[in-house]
Each structure stands twice: as C-alpha cells, then as structure tokens.
C-alpha cells in the first residue's frame, strides 16, 4: 500500500476517534480553554461582560457552533459525540476540497517549466 494511502486511512481513524477530544475533557473536568470563554462565563469570572466583547461576539452565528448542531448545548455525550464526528467529516471534506482547489491552481505542472 502506498504511504499516502496509509496516511489518508490514518486521517479517517482520527476522525472516528475525534470524540475523545470531547469525552476526555468531560470526564476529567477540563473546561473552556483560557481566553475562549463565552460572554456569560467571563461575566462570572470578572463580574462584568466587557461591552466591546458583547458587541462583537454575537455578530457571527456559526452554522455548527462548537462542532455540534444548534441547540445541542445540554445534550448527552453520545449525541454530542455523533455530532462531533459528523462535524469532523463535514470540516475535513470542506478543508480538503478548498485546499485541493488552491493546490491545483497554484501547483506547478510537471514537465511544464515556469517561464
């Protein structure tokens, strides 16, 4: 088997294992990364929500917030894990598609030397 084929299989395995990145923090009590708190979380931390932050934070509504479907905030780990894998599939498909396109546009064709 070609090494690149093995690497793609490795990527697929990582996609399927990705819920570990959700489950381990949930089990071991790992919360939000430093500096990535929501406006409510930061209100609890410092006693107020910075006004510029609340103004900017609500502007963009991501279609799959935090690698889950909208409104899955309180859902169980099983549901969230499925959404996580689905998000990984969607994200990888998009990233691969966009990068392939950029790569094809930029890449030098073999045997066709740049002028």
């Amino acid at each position: 088997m070609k090494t690149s084929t093995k690497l793609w299989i490795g990527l697929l395995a990582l996609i399927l294992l990705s819920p570990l990145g959700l489950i381990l923090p949930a089990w071991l009590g790992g919360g939000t990364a430093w500096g990535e708190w929501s406006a409510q979380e930061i209100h609890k931390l410092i006693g107020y929500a910075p006004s510029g932050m609340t103004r900017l934070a609500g502007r963009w509504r991501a279609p799959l917030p935090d690698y889950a479907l909208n409104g899955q905030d309180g859902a169980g780990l099983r549901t969230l894990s499925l959404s996580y894998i689905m998000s990984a599939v969607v994200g990888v498909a998009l990233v691969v598609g966009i990068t392939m396109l950029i790569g094809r546009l930029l890449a030098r064709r073999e045997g066709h030397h740049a002028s």
Partner: protein
Amino acid sequence: MHIPDGYLGPQTYGAAYAVMAPVWAVASRIVSRTLRSRQAPMLALGAAFTFVIMMFNVPIPGGSSGHAVGAVLVAVLLGPWAACIAVSVALIVQALLFGDGGVTCIGANCLNMAVIMPFVGYAVYRLFAGRSAATSSRRWLGAAIGGYLGLNAAALAAAFEFGVQPMLAHDAAGHALYAPYSLAVAIPAMMLPHLLIFGFAEATVTGMVVAYLQRTDVTLLHGVPAGASKNEAAV
C-alpha cells in the same frame, strides 16, 4: 488558542489582517513556484490533519483544556509557506462553520498558528537536522522540538495579543472593552499549560509522524528529492 470574536479590539484584529494579507499573497507566490502538482493532495491531507488534530482537546488540571495544532508537521513535510496556506484554510473553516475562533480574529489566529508556529518550528527543525541524512534521528527529534517550540511561540503571540487589550481600550469606569486580563496575567496563564502539557502533545504528534515517514517514505519530507530511495537516503 483560537481567539474568539470580542477578545481583540479593532486596532489589533485589523492590524493582524493587514499583516496577513501580504503574507498570504507571498505564500501563494512561493507555493506556486515550489509545489509540484503531485503534492496538491498532500497539501490537502496536511490541512485536513491540522483541522482534525485541533479537535482533540486535552484536559488539564484547573478546569481548562487545549490541543496540538500540527502546523510544524505540515511545515516539515511541505515547507513553511505551504504550511501557512494549509493551516489558514483549516482555521478559516473552523471560524466560519464551527465558531472555533472569531471571524474578526481570523487574521490574528492565522498569524499565530499559520505563520509564527510553522516558521519557528521549521527553523528549529532545520537547525537540528542540519546536513544529516534524511533518515537520521536528528530529523524526527528536530521536528519534535520544533513542534514544541513552534506551539509555544504561537501561544506567546496569542498571550501578547490578549494581554495588550486592557492597555488599548477601556471605558470611563476602567472596565476593559475586550479581553480583560493584562500581560502579567495572560502570559503565565497561556504559557504554563503550553510549556508543561500541550507543547509535549505537539512534540509527540510531530516527532512520531516524521519518524514513521522516515521509515516508510522519506521523499515525503520537504527538501528530500523525489528520486531518493530509502536506501540512498540512508547513506
């Protein structure tokens, strides 16, 4: 390390976009000169790898978490400019589709993780690898140390961007408008977990994949000629 919307004021995120625009232009030019069309799938694989590896949150004591990025690995395989493009694509998809990192902060997050990280890591790797054979253990070791230092350089840049916000903008009551913590708080809070934990996660991932490729197909490493067989490279 994905700075969300609202943590950086317009001066900071605007400046980061202003820095990134010419960097992306130069990266495109350089990659168009150096990337062979057979490497386009590797570029896509690299971008996809960084996207997925960033989903593996590692919990740490104190109720926080973080993750590896993979930018140095891509730089070791395809060069730092190609890594810049690959990681930028992953970060832009994360921000727009998944709200991981702010849309206003795409410039800043790309500056940290798609520029500072791969370039610092790649420089360390080259320094370590020197003129060693493609299969030398100095390569995977250099890649691992590059991963560790590259991730920490990116974390330091993010800490700096967070930490200058209270100086740049506050209201009459002295309340911060954006990220509220000063440099004295932001730098240790960001650096301790990255120096003690996430940096080692990055080093492990980077070193392991490079060591694996050294045994299976060294020609995938950046700068190793496509014609070099495993045996030739081992001389």
